[in-house]
């Protein structure tokens, strides 16, 4: 008597070591496990970029999910001219900017908590020490003031600060993501920093 073969359980980690290009190719043919791996790889960066632009966890969650869903549905149109990561970033950035334009200036701040390491970061410790112009300021208050100052910037200026100074993306990559030249990225960054510095003058020592 023939016994039925046991159902094979797909190994969730089988895709973990695959190259990005292979994962994209599999995902394009409808392999959701491959796409799941792509989501795992880039979720933190995509979420963080959107969160730093919106200063709102719920909005960032929605927009990040929608960006990944949109990317999956548009995978067939992905020609591979740039990396999947840059292409995905572009989708997330466009979605976020469209969302912020619709919301206009009605900002509702819903900040994520600071991690444990923040209190031990030497740069931040120095900022809240008695050397700063504003003494006895807590990290929580500093976080709120910083987010409010960022929200005062226009979206293109905020985007370059978030991508470069917070996320550490290079000028070249930012230019590729935003579809502008490097000179524009540099000038936006300079202007945005000037603006931020004036908004936060009482919290930073110049």
């Amino acid at each position, binding site marked *: 008597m023939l016994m039925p073969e046991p159902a094979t359980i797909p190994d969730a980690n089988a895709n973990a070591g695959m190259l990005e290009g292979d994962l994209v190719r599999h995902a394009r043919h409808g392999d959701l496990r491959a796409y799941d791996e792509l989501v795992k790889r880039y979720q933190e960066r995509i979420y963080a970029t959107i969160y730093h632009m919106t200063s709102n966890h719920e909005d960032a969650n929605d927009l990040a999910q929608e960006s990944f869903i949109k990317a999956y549905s548009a995978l067939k149109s992905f020609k591979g001219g740039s990396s999947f990561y840059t292409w995905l970033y572009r989708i997330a950035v466009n979605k976020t900017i469209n969302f912020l334009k619709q919301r206009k200036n009605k900002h509702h701040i819903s900040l994520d908590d600071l991690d444990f390491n923040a209190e031990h970061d030497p740069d931040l410790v120095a900022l809240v020490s008695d050397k700063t112009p504003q003494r006895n300021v807590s990290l929580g208050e500093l976080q709120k003031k910083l987010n409010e100052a960022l929200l005062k910037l226009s979206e293109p200026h905020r985007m370059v600060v978030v991508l470069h100074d917070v996320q550490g993306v290079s000028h070249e990559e930012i230019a590729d993501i935003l579809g502008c030249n490097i000179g524009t990225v540099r000038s936006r960054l300079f202007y945005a920093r000037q603006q931020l*510095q004036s908004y936060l003058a009482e919290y930073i020592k110049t």
Partner: protein
Amino acid sequence: MNENNDNFHELKRLLKLKQHEVPPPGYFSNFPGEVISRIRAGEPAGSQDLAEQLRGTSWLESLLRVFQAKPGVIGGVATSLCLLLLIGVVLADRPDQEPVGILASSETTPESTPALAAAVPTSADTSGIAVSTNPVVSLQPVATLFSQQQNPLFQSASFAPAGQ
């Protein structure tokens, strides 16, 4: 415009604070599962363009989707249809009016315009001519094959041999 400008050193230190902002614990463990389940459910990616939403669906589905998304649109369409229906009912109830002729509505009369006077017969001239509301009166006598009045242009046929 040097990016390493020392003037921004303190600002960059302050911006490091953003890197310490983290979502609730376990957030990134659940995130991929939520994305994949939404993809499996076939959900559209939020605020897609209308053109993207309409692509690949029948026109009726597209129309219904537009109405679902915008209740104001279906309200406007319904109001317009009601107005059209109302106008139709009102027009249907009105009694027929005498058509106002083009000549009557204008200041020009056949008498005042020689060209028209020649083209349009006066009331005196129309005494024998049938108009649409009058009985038809023929000006020509009706010639029938069997009537007594023979047409001079033809003769009755004779089957008798010639010479008789």
